[in-house]
């Protein structure tokens, strides 16, 4: 990596974002390191999505500093950001699949269109099928997004986010509006992606159980499924931190035990669900 020994993937320093006189983010500061996972909890409108969009420069901070993969992006020109963004995977809440492109073209999109990449067509298809196999949807290549169920669309979105093997993956409410079984499948994919490639992961959610899964489960490549990680195992919960947002302010940051022990009425609401 060009950043040398610095392990920081994402750094927020006193970041504030204002929308029409309302503070969407209020002096938020945190640091995400390589291989680390972060679960961001908060109610609707607490600034979770804004935080993710600010992290990749889709929204510019009104004050403060955002550092992504060693580059200060708060003042960067949009054009310079494109290359940096090609090293980040992002899944939007509404997925944002291109509805006039097939599943295959959607997943191939970053490979084919990112300027930094010189994809050859034959490799490209292989990579696309590989990414779709990862989410177990390799049979849907020729389908259009409108022909898929909500859960399948999310999975295609995950395949598109990770097809470029990004250094950091950001998920915006990946399980919102899904039934418990599909939600569990999606969380399994997130954990699998994190553990196979050791990518830094930020997941925004309002469901504490999603965070619990991300913190306490790991992917077992032999069995091909997720299983509880032992506390002293290779991935104990210390690699996963929780953050809680309340009306744009970061009101809690810490590991699961600290979160469960919190006496703050707002923070503890998420745990007692």
């Amino acid at each position, binding site marked *: 990596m060009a950043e040398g020994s610095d392990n920081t993937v994402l750094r927020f320093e006193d970041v504030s974002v204002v929308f029409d006189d309302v503070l969407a983010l209020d002096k938020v500061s945190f640091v995400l390191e390589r291989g680390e996972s972060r679960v961001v909890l908060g109610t609707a409108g607490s600034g979770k999505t804004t935080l993710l*969009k600010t992290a*990749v420069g*889709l929204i510019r901070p009104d004050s403060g500093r955002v550092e992504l993969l060693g580059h200060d992006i708060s003042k960067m020109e*949009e*054009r310079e950001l*494109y*290359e*940096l*963004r*090609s090293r*980040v995977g*992002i899944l*939007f809440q*509404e*997925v*944002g*699949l*291109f*509805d006039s492109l097939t599943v295959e073209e959607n997943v191939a*999109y*970053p490979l084919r*269109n*990112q*300027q*930094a990449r010189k994809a050859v067509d034959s490799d490209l298809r292989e990579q696309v099928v590989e990414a779709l196999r990862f989410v177990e949807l390799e049979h849907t290549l020729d389908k259009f997004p409108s022909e898929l169920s909500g859960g399948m669309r999310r999975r295609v979105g995950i395949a*598109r986010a990770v097809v470029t093997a990004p250094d950091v993956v950001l998920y915006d409410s990946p399980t919102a509006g899904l039934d418990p079984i599909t939600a569990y499948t999606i969380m399994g994919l997130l954990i699998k992606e994190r553990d196979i490639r050791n990518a830094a992961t930020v997941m925004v959610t309002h469901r504490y159980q999603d965070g619990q899964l991300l913190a306490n489960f790991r992917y077992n490549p032999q069995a091909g499924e997720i299983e509880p990680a032992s506390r002293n195992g290779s991935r104990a919960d210390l690699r996963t931190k929780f953050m809680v947002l309340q009306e744009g302010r970061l009101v809690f940051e810490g590991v699961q035990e600290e979160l469960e022990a919190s006496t703050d009425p707002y923070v503890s609401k998420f745990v007692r669900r």
Partner: protein
Amino acid sequence: MLDFLKPPIQTFQDFFLLAGRTLRTLPRRPHYRDDISLQMDMIGVGSVPIVLLVGFFSGAVMALQMSRALAQYGATGQVGQIVAITLVRELGPVLTSLLVAGRVGSGIASELGSMKVTEQIDAMRALGTDPVQKLVKPRLTATAFTLPLLTIIADFVGMVGGYLMAVPVLSLTTRAQYWNSAYRSLEYNDITQGLLKPFLFAIIIALVGCYYGLRTTGGTQGVGRATTQAVVVASIWIFVTNLMVTRIFVNL
């Protein structure tokens, strides 16, 4: 006090910012050639039938209208000239561009508008591609290239329509005289303005369509609003630009 002026000035400024950004992406790679050819097919080839139809009827009605006026002066032999000049200078470029504004400008605005409201534009940016380069540039290039060609088709078909009305139907003149006067009346000045106009109108149609599409907010209703605005604004600017260009060429 002058607050009411803010929104239109803001819109004007945003539009020129988009135009500037698009111009800057023109020489810059990647060029997305596949997207350009796809747009040329949709914008150019797709508009041929309607352009044929409109060209033909405007030429024919022109010959019909002129038949009485010319007969008063005993100058029915000049019908070819009248049809050719009006078509090449004015009717061809303006009618073709208005039609394309309705067909293509609305299409661009609604497509980009739908993409905007369903987070696809954000997704595009997040996936490391520039929406201006990927969406606006191919549409601008394709429209600017195909609209002058469509105008040439409309002009020619219009002259054929005028001929069919003037010679076989009304017997105003002979075939040779019609085509001869049409051909001889056209000067370089006419051809230049006849091709410069659709080129400028194409830039207006594509950029206005993209601009209103990309700034769409407010769900499906917003998409409808953006589409209407794109067509209305593009049409107005076509008329305004037409007047300015004509003013310049009349003096040349």
